[in-house]
């Protein structure tokens, strides 16, 4: 254990740079509001006091893509909205992640027709899919915790 054993109880911790960086990324990940339809209500419920998302570091939800790391696509995306979604995703700074919340964002949901995009992964690369119509706030929190585990396992060599 090296340095820590020798220094005893002086409040020093050794870790790797990757672990420290990933820890800081997960503890203060700010989501971007992308509530489009009914799933937005459940996202708001997850952010509110009963199922608190700020326990997990998401204290604020930034509507601006320039100031957020995580994009939670909550709701159905229509064909006309897709270029807008892609443009906002491009405006987010690296590193960025996408959670596709609900059935309509993951696979088109109940809407198998000309107007709704069949899954938001046609335009943006998705990290975590949360199923449900709408998913309960606890399901969204489970999706966020899964994303955190993925982020904790990220290596620097993988950065795009």
């Amino acid at each position, binding site marked *: 254990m090296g340095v820590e054993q020798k220094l005893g109880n002086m409040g020093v911790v050794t870790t790797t740079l990757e672990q420290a960086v990933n820890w800081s990324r997960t503890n203060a990940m700010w989501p971007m509001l992308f509530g489009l339809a009914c799933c937005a209500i459940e996202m708001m419920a997850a952010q509110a006091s009963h199922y608190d998302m700020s326990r997990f570091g998401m204290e604020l939800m930034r509507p601006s893509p320039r100031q957020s790391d995580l994009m939670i696509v909550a709701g159905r995306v229509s064909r006309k909205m897709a270029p807008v979604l892609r443009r906002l995703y491009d405006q987010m700074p690296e590193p960025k992640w996408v959670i596709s919340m609900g059935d309509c964002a993951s696979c088109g949901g109940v809407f198998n027709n*000309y107007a*709704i995009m069949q899954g938001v992964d*046609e*335009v943006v690369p998705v990290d975590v899919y949360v199923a449900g119509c709408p998913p309960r706030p606890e399901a969204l929190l489970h999706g966020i915790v899964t994303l955190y585990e993925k982020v904790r396992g990220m290596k620097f060599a993988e950065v795009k």
Partner: protein
Amino acid sequence: MEKKLQIIVQKLEKEFGAIASETRGEVSLFVLAERIIAVCQQIQGQGFELLSAMTAVDYWPQENPRFHVVYEFTSVSKNLRLEIRVPVPGLNPSLPTVSGIYRNANWREREVWDMFGIRFEGHPDLRRILMPADWEGHPLRKDYPLGYEEPQFSFNSEEIDLRKPYAKE
């Protein structure tokens, strides 16, 4: 039918050769496509200030002419409603625009063009309003396919997965 409405409908029938029909208290007038502008001007003079709705219906393959463009007028001052139906044939469908008389017909006609493919001559800005600008086809016609993609079950999951477009980055 209300008395006030009856007088108006009879006048329109005589002047323009419209055919009236009534279902459950709602009056519907069939008018030919060439006369629609004159009918609309007459109706506006009679006190129908508001074009409350404008849509189209596709009756393919049962009926010919295929489309019916439906206008619904409301008179706020007299508390009356009137519906005008214009049959439009399926080959190069087109109608004169009423957006010079009723301003809100502008976006309604754009929607009818987008969903059915019925052109409106004289419209200042006829382009798609609900679908993306480069979309091909008119979705609410009866010969437009109903679904979009094949549902993925567990037995054909991989084959459909290979054909789906995924974003790379």
